[in-house]
């Protein structure tokens, strides 16, 4: 999986490259709009991460050029301005997702993975399995080690999200947005409570523990079974 990052800020771009490379992705980095434009138009990428505020050729023009050339590569844009206009403009120009700076790296990674997966695997499976945990998507049933576990609708949705993104760190804001459609940072520990309740049902009576807290970042459902 090859990703292009167009970002003029040296520190952020370097850390993004490091983070994404360590997450197992191949990363090309363009430090200005001109290079970015060139790379995007000539290279073959699975995802483009685009800063819209660039000193020379701005991100909008790169995005526009890509779409006009019929290139459907997923584009995630980064904006410093938390402005509705920017979001609307980006999505109208054909971007697939956006993040407002400052963002958490875990959030970026989660969205990058979602975009990379999009279109690749049609989600037609009806059963999800992790270790001895089974999710029957059709009948909304959960069993672990053969035991039936009763979950509420939201707990089921939360577990489904975590299994689909197994071995990825899910930041709280992403969980709130995906499970409850709450797209604002809550200053409460609502997600922690929800995870605690889910754990008490699917993890507490069993071994190994599947749900792990990643301090400072979020939660992860781990399949390797260590810890």
């Amino acid at each position, binding site marked *: 999986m090859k990703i292009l990052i167009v970002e003029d800020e040296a520190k952020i771009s370097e850390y993004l490259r490091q983070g994404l490379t360590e997450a197992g992705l191949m990363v090309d980095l363009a430090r200005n709009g001109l290079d970015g434009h060139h790379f995007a138009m000539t290279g073959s990428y699975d995802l483009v991460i685009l800063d819209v505020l660039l000193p020379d050729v701005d991100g909008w023009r790169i995005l526009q050029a890509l779409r006009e050339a019929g290139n459907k590569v997923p584009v995630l844009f980064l904006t410093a*301005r*938390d*402005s*509705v206009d920017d979001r*609307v403009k980006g999505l*109208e120009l054909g971007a697939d997702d956006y993040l*407002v700076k*400052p963002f*958490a790296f875990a959030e970026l990674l989660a969205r990058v993975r979602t975009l990379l997966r999009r279109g690749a695997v049609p989600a037609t499976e009806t059963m999800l399995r992790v270790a001895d945990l089974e999710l029957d998507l059709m009948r909304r049933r959960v069993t672990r080690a053969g035991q039936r576990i009763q979950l509420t609708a*939201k707990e089921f949705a939360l577990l489904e999200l975590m299994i689909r993104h197994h071995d990825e760190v899910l930041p709280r804001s992403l969980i*709130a947005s995906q499970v*409850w*459609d*709450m*797209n*604002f*940072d*809550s*200053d*409460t*520990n*609502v997600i922690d*409570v*929800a995870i605690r*309740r889910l754990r008490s049902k699917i993890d507490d009576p069993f071994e190994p523990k599947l749900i792990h807290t990643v*301090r*400072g*970042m979020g939660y992860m459902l781990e399949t390797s079974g260590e810890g």
Partner: protein
Amino acid sequence: MRRMRRPLSLTLRLTLLFGVTAAIVFAVFGWIISQSTERHFAAEDTSELEIIARAAHDMLSGFRTPGDVTQLKQRLDDILVGHHNASLYVVNKDGQTVYASPGPDLSAIATAAGRETEGKVVNQWQVANHTYTALIQLVREVAPAANGPYTLVIAAPIEAHLHFLAAFRRTLWFMIASCVAIVSLLGWVAVRQSHAPLHDIVARIRRISANELNTHLPPETVPYELTELAVSFNEMLQRMDAAFHRLSDLNSDIAHELRTPITNLMTQTQVALSRARTIDEYREILYSNMEEYERMAQMVGDMLLLAQTDNHPQIKNIEEVNLADEAHALFEYYDGWAEERGIALTLEGVATVSGDRLMLRRALGNLLSNAIRHTPVGGTVRVKLDTSTAGNNSIVVENPGPEIPSEHLPKLFDRFYRIDLSRQRGGDGVGLGLAIVKSIVTAHGGKIDVASAEGCTRFQIALRKRPASMRRPRQDRAGDS
């Protein structure tokens, strides 16, 4: 846009007004005076002529010896004695002069008046470049042999009167013009004078700088008519002063809010770097730093949101929002958290408003989390929705809990305001939640109030169904998929 024409200066307007009023009043008076003077002179002239006419008429009617011309002349001369201005002319049926007093030749008048004259006529005549008032009368009952009836013409020159009247009128109009000029001038001076307090106020306003917005114009020191101006100016100053202070308070608040996490970060990092640590210790420090960063990021995000809603209060994504649905979604979200704290959530009523769904959800969410946080174990947070017939919606969020002292209530919506200063960095977030609620409600053209009494804190939002201040959604986006 066409530039509006500047209205005429007040001084000019008032001066013109005074001048026009004075001109009209004086002109009417002048006209009345000159008319009555003229009429007075005319009446005086006519009455003199009538006295002579009556005497001449009586004499001629009683005169039975038409042949005695000398006696006739003598008698008529006698009549004219004492009326040295007047002339008398008598002519018989055949146009022959019976009598003509010395002086102007009045035969032309008699001829012009003609035979048809019946009774008495008073008229003005021009004879040999002089103006006369003439009375013409027919005398029927003369002696049979006298070849009657006679026509009497009595005339008196009125040139002197006419001269006098002309001079009088000239003087009168000159006086009137002078008076109008004087009144206008005095009016101008008076208006300038009465503007002096205004100039004084301007000078005082000019002296007020941004640093002393708390000064004000004492309304009792300005003329009565300007009291309103002084009062409203003071009110404006107060509002500006409050806004100014809020702004500078906000700056210091932001600085203060940032100082704490930055101090934590610096101290922690410096201590960590002061000697070699184990990997785990470094990790611990980075985690701890992460928490501070998250706080700061959330604060910056909230500040940006506030700045945006405050500076661009137009809402673009307007849709019909069913508040009951929103409340249910939020209940689902907060349910676990509330349940863990032993708090129940209840919803009553329905309401639909048009607005930005995400913003309204956020406002309601902030109110809910605030209510849940301050509810004691076992309490119930109630959300009540109501739509009145007038199209006004009310959203009430109430929770049991310790009463908030009334002095805190109006400040609850201020940024970074915390009732308990010692609890500054508890789980209360960054202290912008309620400010965001207010900002969103204001952007929707609504109002929010808070009351706290008898162990119950109650936030009430009033939202009109379709606020006038909101823009219609942009049409140009309709075609996009």
